[in-house]
């Protein structure tokens, strides 16, 4: 299994580990609930170096407009955009954050398990353009500092003022003598930053942030409950090669008015069909319906769909779930449903996503 450059540090801190996308990653250091609450109330520090970084130079805007579903050429320098890469069938290969560094230079962050699939797709598309596609994943440590106190803490370390940097933007700066990229993005539903650090310089920066009183080091367990509360999809759960962006409620990122792009013909067709739709559900009591548990209409005999992610929400105190349900039912907010929780029917109702908003 792959390990991040900070693996030994995590082990020394007493982390428990889990396999995630082929990486041996910290799942928690102590209490995952305390880690979750630290991000909501103060700040949490995550090592997310398993994420893949791919840099595109040259006709980067043209390549990305062709290979991805959004219009990336319309971005301003220093901005970030959430988007997806689909195959010719309009199914989701991965969801991505794209940063525009300059007119002719973009940085893409892909999920760990999809890094190679994304790279292959981009390299295939790159044949049509004057462009250089480089997998830089091995060169970077990516840290996420997330929470209401993240910006003020990080500001003490960097040579630029982060306060005025808008959400979904990226700036370069220095921490000590180390050149870093500072992106105001994240996967927790809180304000915060993702910090790209050259791997050899990462340990001392990780340590300097981790010792701060406001900061708690957090593992993937907390990251998962945080993103679920924030209604953010996780590839392999809400997004797979079996679903299209419209079913996932992410049709807004698909720019069908672009010229030809990979998946366009299929996506134009898929936009009008809704076999499945992703819903947010709120449960009664404390027992959470988890991934793959089935959802029914009240008293119904046949399942109308399945949970993709579910947990007892640490912030809200009740079970929350995202689920793909039969799109033809056109369920409304407040619709009553049931989940089969290991043989017991538990009441759930349809609620707005996200479950939590800061």
């Amino acid at each position, binding site marked *: 299994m792959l390990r991040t450059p900070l693996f030994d540090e995590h082990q020394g801190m007493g982390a428990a580990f889990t396999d995630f996308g082929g990486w041996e990653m910290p799942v928690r250091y102590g209490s*995952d*609930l305390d880690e979750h609450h630290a991000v909501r109330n103060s700040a949490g520090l995550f090592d997310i170096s398993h994420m893949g970084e791919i840099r595109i130079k040259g006709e980067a805007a043209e390549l990305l407009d062709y290979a991805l579903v959004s219009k990336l050429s319309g971005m301003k320098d220093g901005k970030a955009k959430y988007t997806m890469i689909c195959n010719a069938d309009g199914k989701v290969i991965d969801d991505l954050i794209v940063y525009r560094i300059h007119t002719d230079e973009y940085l893409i962050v892909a999920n760990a398990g999809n890094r190679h699939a994304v790279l292959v797709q981009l390299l295939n598309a790159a044949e049509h353009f004057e462009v250089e596609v480089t997998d830089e994943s091995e060169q970077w440590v990516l840290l996420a500092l997330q929470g209401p106190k993240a910006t003020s803490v990080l500001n003490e370390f960097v040579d630029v003022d982060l306060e005025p940097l808008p959400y979904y933007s990226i700036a370069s700066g220095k921490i000590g003598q180390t050149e870093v990229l500072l992106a105001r993005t994240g996967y927790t539903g809180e304000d915060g930053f993702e910090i790209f650090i050259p791997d050899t310089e990462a340990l001392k920066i990780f340590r300097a942030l981790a010792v701060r009183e406001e900061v708690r080091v957090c593992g993937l*367990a907390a990251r998962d409950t945080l993103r679920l509360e924030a209604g953010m999809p996780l590839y392999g759960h809400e997004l797979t090669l079996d679903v299209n962006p419209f079913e996932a409620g992410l049709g807004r990122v698909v720019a069908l008015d672009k010229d030809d792009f990979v998946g366009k013909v299929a996506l134009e067709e898929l936009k009008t069909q809704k076999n499945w739709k992703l819903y947010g559900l709120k449960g009664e009591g404390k027992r959470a319906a988890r991934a793959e548990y089935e959802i029914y209409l009240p008293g119904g005999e046949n399942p109308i769909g399945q949970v993709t992610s579910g947990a*007892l929400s*640490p912030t809200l105190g009740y079970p929350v779930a995202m689920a793909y349900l039969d799109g033809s039912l056109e369920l409304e907010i407040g619709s009553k449903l049931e989940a089969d929780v290991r043989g017991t029917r538990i009441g759930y109702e349809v609620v707005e996503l996200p479950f939590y908003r800061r």
Partner: protein
Amino acid sequence: MSNPAELQYTKEHEWVRVEGDVATIGITKYAADALGEIVYVDLPKVGSSTTHMKICGEIESTKSVGELYAPMDGEVVEANDSLSGSPETINGDPFGEGWLVKIRFTQLPDLLSSSEYDAFIGE
């Protein structure tokens, strides 16, 4: 934290404290750590009967669900109701305040000693 020598153990990571014909049951620190922070417990009702190695309850963490196996045939005489309000007690004090149920039994199956359980979990 080591596994207390005065307790007996199962391969399903329960501990058993025998006093007369009543056994107090809990899960080991090893099991609690593996589950992560426990957020919900479903324990058998007082008066219900238990069957050796049959599931009699559930322990849920934010990340996963663990099943509670009855270490012996018997009847539940007490359940730790305080856990419904503070299930995280199981993580904090698995061998003490985090006990789960008390079972009255007539016969005990073979259980592991602490040193056998240590070896079983590779400590």
